[in-house]
């Protein structure tokens, strides 16, 4: 499985990529494989400021539903609009076109404290 080195990871199987205070968030390849075919990504927290580990949305696969947890404190800015009509992008390209939200993080250092690719891989291994 692929876990890009430039990303940070959470125990809830989300990835985060940081550019200044702006971050992009999605779920890992491991997570999409566990969930199976994804049919719906619901995020109704756009514009909201949430804390780390708060639920910012849900992802529905054919057989199961799973909460999405915010990796760090911050404000949700945008949902990936492509997922409305093509939720399967989360399966086919979890780190690329299948990204889920963009957010402004309160404190970029919080991101640095998350797991790196090697630690995450060891956790799911």
């Amino acid at each position, binding site marked *: 499985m692929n876990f890009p080195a430039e990303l940070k990871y959470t125990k809830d199987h989300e990835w985060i990529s940081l550019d200044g205070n702006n971050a992009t968030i999605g779920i890992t390849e491991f997570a999409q494989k566990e969930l199976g*075919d994804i049919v*719906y990504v619901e995020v109704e927290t756009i514009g909201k400021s949430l804390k780390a580990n708060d639920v910012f949305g849900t992802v*529905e696969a054919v*057989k199961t*539903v799973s909460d999405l947890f915010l990796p760090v404190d911050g404000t949700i800015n945008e949902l990936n609009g492509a997922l409305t009509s093509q939720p399967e992008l989360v*399966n086919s390209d979890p780190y690329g076109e299948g990204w889920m939200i963009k957010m402004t993080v309160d404190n970029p250092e919080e991101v640095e404290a998350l797991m790196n690719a090697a630690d995450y891989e060891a956790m799911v291994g």
Partner: protein
Amino acid sequence: MKTTPFTQKHIDLGAKMADFAGYNMPISYSGINDEHATVRKNAGVFDVSHMGEFILKGENALGLIQKLSTNDASKLSAGKAQYSCMTNNEGGIIDDLLIYCIEENKVYMLVVNASNIEKDWNWISEHNTDDVEMHNVTEKTALLAIQGPNATKILQPLTDMDLLNLKYYTFAKGTFAGVGNILVSATGYTGAGGVEIYFEDKGDDAEKIWNAIFDAGKSLGIKPIGLAARDTLRLEMGFCLYGNDIDDTTTPLEGGLGWITKFTKDFTAKNILEIQKKEGIQRKLVGFEMIDKGIPRKGYAIVNTNDEEIGHVTSGTQAPSLGKAIGMGYVKMEQASIGSKIHIKVREKQLEAQVVKMPFA
């Protein structure tokens, strides 16, 4: 965890495995949508060897079956199978099952849900007052379901039995893939057509049969299918899943199984169900499709427009062939008619849904 003759095969093929009714079973291989479509359009192979098989023998076997099951097994002649259920003393469903008539009035095979093997065996044993010879052959019986519009075409070259003309709910016995004493029945749980193959797990027969099926179907794209797609396939057809849609607390009449409940013969709690039929049921298992965006799941509340709970979802999924979210659940009779608007409580939101006919379309 228990295994089937094919457990190692599934692992070697890279299937996602999980515990189902105590068995280590394949949940999915290539992905649920792909597997689902394969069965609807082509042909797929399910290992369902976890199902329970009981053989009942002797001159009183039919009497015992008649006493305990709601459908009329006296209608069965050799080579025919029947869908039925067993009721408890309160009229709830102990299990739904298939009854195979191997030899009329003499030998029958009951095929029961894996999760209910012990419960069913004990129930039947307790009521076996006329010395019917009973054998639990679950452990040594392998079962593959080959389902889909191309299933019998793919399998026909492997046997002299006439699979192409095997009528729904009938079966044949013969040699298949060079292995003798195989029972092939035109049954299944997908609504896609095809057969189920029962055989004794001995020597390398299981391996031989699996390989022969995949060799025969390779050029046509036959694939192994997991239990996840089995569930979405059966739900699209409106087939009940024991433990979800029917259980010890639901009666056959409530669960839409009135068609296999024959009041022309005796069975456990017949009097209770007769009263229920006369007075009318209070709740009913219905199929519904979502109007608002969202997916119903087992256990979600069904509410009316006043936010009063009127029932609960027993099965739900995004239906891969239909491209919409569907479910089954119990509702009060006022909301049970086709076209009724109901609301499903999905994470504190009330999403609109509509009662529809099953099979879903």
